C-alpha cells in the first residue's frame, strides 16, 4: 500500500512540475545556456523574414514618409473637416500596445504575481518599440515636421515657449516621460542578464554586453541597489502609465466636438489601451514560443491561461466603459451627438462599428471563459489578433469617423485614406523588425527572475497533502 501511495504522489508532483515553471527548476548553468542558446541560435528563416521586413520598412516607412514630407500632407487622405486620420489612430493604437508591457511587468511585479516572471522582458520590449512607432506616427501627422522641435520648451532668443494650455503639449510631455521611464524600467532588470551574457560570450558581443552591463558582478550590494531602484520604478511607472493614456484621451475629450467631449474618455482609453496591449503581449508570446529555441520550457499553458483571464476581465471593463460612454451620450439627445451616433452605426463604416463590438466583446466573452481555449496558445493568438483589430477600429471610429460630423452640417464629409495605408504597414513592420533585432541582442527571458522564483517555490508535505509554498525573497 505505501508503495502505491508513493506512486500517486510522485505522479501528482510530476504533474505539478509539468504545469508550473516555478516548480520545475533546472540548474543555473543549464538555464543560462538555454537562454543564451535561444538568443544565439538563428535559423535561415529568421534572416529571410528579417530581410523581407527590412525591405517593407525601407519602402513603406522611410521612402513613403519622405514622399509625404516632400509633397505635403495632401498625399494622405485627410481633408476638411477630417483633419486627423489614421496617423493619430496609429499613435493611439501604438501607445495602447506599449501600455501592456509596463502594465504586465510593473503591476504584476508590485502585486507579486508569480506567473509574470518568464515574460516581463518580452512585454517591456513591446513598450519601448511600440512607443517608438507612436512617436513616428505623430511626426507623420504634422504638417511641418521639420519644425517639430518647437514643441520642446527650449531656450531661444525670442523667448517663445510651447503653449502649456494645449492638450497636445501635455501629450508631448507625457509621452516623453513615459518613453524615458519605460526605457529605464526595461534596462534595469536587464542588467543582471546582460552580465550573465557578458560572461558567456566572446568577440563583439563580449564588448557590447560589457558596456551595457555597467560592470555588474552580482555582489550583495549591487543586488540591494538594483532591487531598490526596480521597486521604485515599478511603483512610479504605474501612475505615469495611467496618466499617459488619460492625457492622450484628453486630446479628444478636451476638444469642443460632439462625441469627443466626454468626461469618461480618460479611464475608457486606459482600459482600451490595456485591452489591445495585453492581447498583443499574448500574441508576441505565442510567436516567441513557437519560433525561438528553448521557449517551450519557459512559456507554458499556465502563462497563456493567466493572460487569457486578464484579457477577459479587461474586455469586460472595456465593454462597461463603452456602454457608459455611449448610453450617456445617446440619452443626452444633443442633435449633433445624435447624428454622430447614427453615423457610427448606420454610416459608411457601420461594418467597422459592429466588427469592433464582435471582436472586442463577443468573441472574448464567448471563448475566454474556457480554460481549455485560453490555455491554448494559437487560440489565444487569434483572439488577441481579433481584439487588436477591434481596438484599432475603435480608434478609427473615434478619430476620422467622428470628425466627419460636426456642428456645421454643410461641411460634413467622409475620409478615404491615402499614404496612411503603406505607412501603417511600415510602422507595423518596423515594430516587428526592431523586436526581432532585439531578440538576437538581449536575453528575452529574465533568467535571474525565473531562477529567483524557482528558489522561492518549494513543494511541502503537510499531512497527506502536497502543497506549494512560496518564500518571501525580497
Amino acid at each position, binding site marked *: 500500500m505505501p508503495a502505491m501511495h508513493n506512486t500517486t504522489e510522485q505522479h501528482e508532483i510530476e504533474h505539478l512540475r509539468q504545469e508550473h515553471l516555478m516548480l520545475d527548476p533546472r540548474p543555473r548553468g543549464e538555464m543560462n545556456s538555454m537562454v543564451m542558446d535561444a538568443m544565439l541560435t538563428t535559423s535561415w528563416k529568421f534572416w529571410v523574414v528579417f530581410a523581407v521586413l527590412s525591405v517593407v520598412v525601407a519602402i513603406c516607412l522611410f521612402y513613403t514618409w519622405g514622399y509625404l514630407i516632400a509633397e505635403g500632407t495632401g498625399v494622405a487622405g*485627410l481633408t*476638411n473637416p477630417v483633419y486627423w486620420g489614421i496617423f493619430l489612430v496609429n499613435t493611439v493604437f501604438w501607445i495602447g500596445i506599449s501600455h501592456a508591457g509596463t502594465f504586465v511587468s510593473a503591476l504584476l511585479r508590485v502585486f507579486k504575481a508569480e506567473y509574470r516572471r518568464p515574460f516581463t522582458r518580452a512585454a517591456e520590449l513591446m513598450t519601448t518599440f511600440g512607443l517608438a512607432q507612436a512617436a513616428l506616427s505623430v511626426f507623420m501627422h504634422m*504638417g*511641418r515636421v521639420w519644425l517639430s522641435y518647437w514643441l520642446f520648451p527650449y531656450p531661444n532668443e525670442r523667448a517663445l515657449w510651447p503653449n502649456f494650455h494645449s492638450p497636445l503639449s501635455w501629450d508631448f510631455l507625457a509621452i516623453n516621460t513615459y518613453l524615458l521611464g519605460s526605457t529605464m524600467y526595461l534596462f534595469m532588470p536587464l542588467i543582471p542578464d546582460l552580465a550573465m551574457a557578458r560572461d558567456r560570450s566572446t568577440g563583439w558581443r563580449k564588448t557590447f554586453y560589457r558596456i551595457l552591463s555597467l560592470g555588474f558582478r552580482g555582489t550583495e550590494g549591487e543586488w540591494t541597489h538594483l532591487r531598490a531602484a526596480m521597486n521604485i520604478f515599478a511603483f512610479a511607472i504605474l501612475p505615469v502609465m495611467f496618466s499617459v493614456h488619460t492625457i492622450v484621451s484628453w486630446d479628444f475629450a478636451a476638444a469642443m466636438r460632439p462625441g469627443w467631449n466626454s468626461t469618461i474618455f480618460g479611464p475608457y482609453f486606459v482600459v482600451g489601451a490595456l485591452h489591445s496591449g495585453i492581447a498583443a503581449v499574448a500574441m508576441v508570446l505565442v510567436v516567441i514560443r513557437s519560433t525561438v529555441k528553448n521557449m517551450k520550457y519557459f512559456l507554458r499553458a499556465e502563462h497563456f491561461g493567466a493572460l487569457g483571464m486578464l484579457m477577459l476581465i479587461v474586455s469586460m471593463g472595456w465593454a462597461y466603459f463603452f456602454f457608459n460612454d455611449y448610453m450617456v451620450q445617446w440619452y443626452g439627445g444633443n442633435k449633433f451627438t445624435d447624428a454622430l451616433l447614427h453615423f457610427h452605426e448606420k454610416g459608411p463604416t457601420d461594418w467597422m462599428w459592429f466588427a469592433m463590438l464582435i471582436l472586442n466583446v463577443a468573441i472574448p466573452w464567448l471563448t475566454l471563459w474556457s480554460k481549455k481555449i485560453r490555455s491554448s496558445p494559437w487560440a489565444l493568438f487569434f483572439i488577441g489578433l481579433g481584439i487588436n483589430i477591434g481596438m484599432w477600429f475603435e480608434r478609427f471610429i473615434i478619430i476620422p469617423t467622428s470628425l466627419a460630423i460636426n456642428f456645421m452640417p454643410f461641411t460634413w*464629409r467622409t475620409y478615404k485614406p491615402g499614404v496612411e495605408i503603406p505607412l501603417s504597414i511600415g510602422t507595423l513592420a518596423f515594430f516587428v523588425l526592431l523586436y526581432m533585432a532585439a531578440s538576437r541582442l538581449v536575453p528575452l527571458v529574465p533568467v535571474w527572475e525565473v531562477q529567483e522564483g524557482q528558489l522561492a517555490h518549494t513543494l511541502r508535505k503537510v499531512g497527506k497533502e502536497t502543497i506549494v509554498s512560496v518564500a518571501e525573497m525580497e
Partner: protein
Amino acid sequence: MSELNNPQSKPKLKETEQGKWGLVVDQDLCTGCQACVVACAMENNIPFVGEEDAAYGRAMHWIRIERFWEGEYLEVKSTPFQPVMCQQCGAAPCEPVCPVFASVHSESEQVNSQVYNRCVGTRYCANNCPYVARTFNWRDYTRPEPLNNQLNPDVTVRRRGVMEKCTFCIQRIRKVEDKAKSEVREVADGEVQPACVQACPANALIFGRVDDPESNVSRASFSGRAVELLEELGTKPRVTYLKGGSEYARNA
C-alpha cells in the same frame, strides 16, 4: 495689460474690452452669388487647389456660402444662403489648443490671428473650430504665369503644412488706420472694407467697429433679426447674422 500677452487669459478680459471690429451678415439680402468668395481669394492670395483636391473637399476658401433648402423639392419654400467665415470669437476654441501659440488673439484688432511662421501643422485648431472656418495648405500650390502677377503684396503667401483662415482683411484695417493717423483723425465708419464687404453687390455684409454704438454694424446687430451662429457654445463670435425677414413680412 500684461495679462493680454497671454492669449489664454480668456474671455473675461477680451469681452470687457468689447473688441473693435465686427461684421454683420444679412442673410435676407444675400443672393448666394459668391462674389465675396472670389474677392476674398484674390485679396488674400488664397491658392487654387485644382479640380481633384477641390472635389475631395480641400478647396481653400476663407469664406464659404452655405446653401440650405427649406421644404422638399418642388415645394421648396426658400433657399437661404449662409456665408460663413471665421467668427473672430472672443473666447476662441482654436486658441488654447495650439501647442506652439500659432493661433493667438491680437491685442489691437481684437481678432483671432494665425501666425503662419509659427504653425507646425498639428491641425488641432481646425478640429476644435465649431464653425469649420479654417483651411489647411495640404500641398504647395503653384500659380502658373501670369497668375503670380496678381498676388497681393500686402499678404503673406503660405506654404504647405500651414493652417490659415479669415483675418477680417487685417492688412486693410491697418492701411486705413495708418492713413487716418497720418491725417490726425479717427477712422470713419465704413472706411474699412474687407474684400468680401467691398465685393458684395447686395450690400448683405456690413463691417465696422462694434464698440461704437452709432456705427452701421452696431445698429444692424441690435436688430430683432440678429442671431449668432452656435450661440449656445459660448464662443462670443464677432459676426452677427440677420435672418427671418420673410417671417416678419408674412406676419405684418
